[in-house]
């Protein structure tokens, strides 16, 4: 039993909170209904998935085990995968650091106690690193475990390498957040850190797309062969692949990873704990903006109820950094499509599908925020407002941003390839309207802070949204293929997909929640 106030004691407290947090994430019943631990169903499901992953790992490794696959070569893809994971980890730790700083949780209680701020900060940093590493340990761990069965105990180094990587990213995320606080101030940091986190999460995607869009020969085989046979300057012996070797259990790289992570942790915790506390103090007052003299009051009362509601919804969206980050992340994935359009490769069916899918997904997200996550539903219910006007205005507030976003590329596309442009405009409009209506009909009230967990909250709505996106996205692909390639089978496929999309909408209508 650790002494009260010690780092292990605080760590146990942090773990307990994480366990209860898992209960809340496992379902709102856990969060609101007083149940503090994940349900038996959640635990059994988790164990089942973990066992299944072991089975998959066993099958894959058995195939690999027979063939000649030197670990030096294997280290290369593993290092690349770890680098990709590192960008996701950085995105995740940035979000966790913002949450730690701005949502605080029990930090006010801890910091008002006589515990040293260094211990509190160190434990919070460890918590961020552990919660970041956990999903990767869960998903990749079975491969390391099964490798032991096949006589490769060194592969257990994966746990150390992933943990070290998570710790390095936690330190990088924390230092970046604190640096942003110092440079931009607490209020702007909240938005900026979310944006940086979103971009970090999509970094690999952006890099690969930039590579694809800037090179003109689409064959990367010669470069890959040169890498594998050692004639490339980044051959198997390159220091670039050390992380991969650490995963495979090479003692030197493994020790290096451990030392690097420990050093980063010690330096970050030891040198920046005071600034963390200072950042927390700044964050506490970040909601306030500079007071203006009384005479500077400015009102903009609007004549139309519709405008009043739309403006209010857009203001709330624009001021929520979490939501902006989520929406930006989706926009990041639109960039390569826009580039494709501008480069004149507009005829590709993938373009129709991509634009439609992304607009549908964006409308679903905005629709949930505007329709389901209303902060003051009682105010609207108590107001003498026709429900239809209210719903229409909210739908418009959710649908307009995606439509405006793709308006310019669509106009460009329509000018250069009129039939394709009009067909994509049709599928985009259909997808956007359907996504909004699905959220309106089967969406359940939720809190804005639960944006990321909305899929778990309302599985039915999430599935209908997904099916809707896929149907309209598929229709976008098929219609553009029909217009450009003219293959007859696409007629029937298009008709079937359109029927499926309308069927999903009808199903959502039939399953709609009864209003008051």
């Amino acid at each position, binding site marked *: 039993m650790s002494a009260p106030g010690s780092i292990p004691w605080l760590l146990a407290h942090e773990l307990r909170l994480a366990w209860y947090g898992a209960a809340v994430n496992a379902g709102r019943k856990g969060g609101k209904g007083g149940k503090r631990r994940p349900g038996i169903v959640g635990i059994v499901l988790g164990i089942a998935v973990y066992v299944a992953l072991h089975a998959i790992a066993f099958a894959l490794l058995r195939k690999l085990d027979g063939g000649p696959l030197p670990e030096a070569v294997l280290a290369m893809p593993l290092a690349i995968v770890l680098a990709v994971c590192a960008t996701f980890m950085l995105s995740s730790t940035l979000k966790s650091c913002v949450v730690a700083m701005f949502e605080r949780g029990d930090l006010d209680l801890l910091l008002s106690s006589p515990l040293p701020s260094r211990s509190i900060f160190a434990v919070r940093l460890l918590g961020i690193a552990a919660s970041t590493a956990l999903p990767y340990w869960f998903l990749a761990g079975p491969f390391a475990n099964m490798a032991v069965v096949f006589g490769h105990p060194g592969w257990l180094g994966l746990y150390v390498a992933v943990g070290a990587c998570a710790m390095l990213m936690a330190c990088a995320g924390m230092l970046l957040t604190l640096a942003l606080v110092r440079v931009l101030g607490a209020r702007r940091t909240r938005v900026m850190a979310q944006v940086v986190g979103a971009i970090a999460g999509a970094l690999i995607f952006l890099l690969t797309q930039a590579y694809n869009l800037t090179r003109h020969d689409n064959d990367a085989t010669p470069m890959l062969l040169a890498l594998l046979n050692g004639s490339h300057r980044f051959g198997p012996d390159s220091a670039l692949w050390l992380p991969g070797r650490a995963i495979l259990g090479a003692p030197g790289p493994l020790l290096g990873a451990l030392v690097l992570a420990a050093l980063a942790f010690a330096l970050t915790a030891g040198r920046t704990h005071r600034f963390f506390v200072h950042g927390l103090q700044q964050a506490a*007052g970040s*909601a306030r903006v500079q*007071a203006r003299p009384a005479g500077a009051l400015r009102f903009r009362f609007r004549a139309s109820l519709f405008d009043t509601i739309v403006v*209010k919804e857009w203001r*709330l969206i624009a001021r929520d950094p979490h939501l902006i980050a989520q929406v930006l992340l989706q926009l990041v994935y639109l960039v390569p499509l826009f580039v494709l359009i501008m480069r004149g490769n507009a005829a590709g069916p993938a373009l129709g599908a991509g634009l439609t899918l992304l607009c549908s997904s964006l409308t679903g997200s905005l629709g949930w925020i505007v329709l389901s996550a209303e902060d003051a539903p*009682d105010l609207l219910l*108590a107001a*003498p407002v026709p429900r239809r006007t209210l719903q229409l205005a909210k739908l418009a507030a959710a649908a307009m941003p995606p439509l405006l976003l793709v308006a310019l590329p669509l106009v460009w596309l329509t000018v250069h390839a009129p039939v394709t442009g009009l067909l994509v405009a049709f599928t985009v409009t259909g997808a956007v309207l359907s996504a909004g209506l699905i959220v309106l009909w089967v969406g359940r009230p939720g809190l804005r802070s639960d944006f990321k967990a909305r899929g778990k909250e309302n599985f039915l709505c999430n599935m209908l949204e997904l099916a809707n996106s896929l149907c309209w996205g598929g229709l976008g692909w098929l219609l553009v293929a029909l217009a450009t390639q003219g293959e007859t089978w696409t007629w029937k496929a298009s008709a079937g997909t359109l029927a499926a999309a309308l069927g999903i909408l009808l199903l959502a209508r039939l399953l709609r929640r009864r209003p008051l």
Partner: protein
Amino acid sequence: MTGDTPALRLSGLAKSFGRPAVDGLDLTVRRGELYALLGPNGAGKTTTLRMVTGLLAPDAGHVEVLGIDLARDPAGAKRGMAYLPDDPLLYGKLKPTEYLEFVAGLWGIRAQDAEPRARRLLDWLDLTKHAHELTEGFSRGMKQKLALAGALIHEPQLLILDEPLTGLDAAAARQVKDLLVSHVEGGGTVILTTHILEVAERLAQRIGIIRQGRLIAEGTLAELRERTQAGSLEDVFLHLTEGHAQ
């Protein structure tokens, strides 16, 4: 709608959540009076108010607001009424000016009427200097005062408040009480629930006490004292609610 029409008339109002929360409640509140609805925890006060304001559909009974049947013409009934729950209906990411713009828009108030009212209310409630801050950074008292400003921006004839003084400091509580008195003096009607019996004792012209969803006593303070032979409202309240419990 005439001056004789009560501000609020409830007849046979009932709502059950497994067990009856409001059980055939009959209640009439006259225009131009401050009516305090008292009762122990779980007596059905908030449920009653939520049905009156259209937030909850009753299982049975009728609600008439300013002579308008809430079920038949909800928009008409809501137009002359404002509701301030114990948890203020605010948007953390809006500034007070924007919140008042929004509420005025919901009640369809013209800009030329809404703007001077908004300025006056913010000034009266000492919120002008905070008018450009997001409400998420406000204290409980500031939030409550802003919600009250929102409730008053359309100059409702009937103001319904659920525990309006909870969490307010002495100065803020005084401001809110003055505002309620002023509203009644201006011809408006106020219905409030409160656990602070001194407030009801000092402000209310009539008091209704409910228990287990039923009105067990009603009248002026003097009438209730006479009926129970008790001294203060606290004594009256305890006598009636505990008496019924036995």
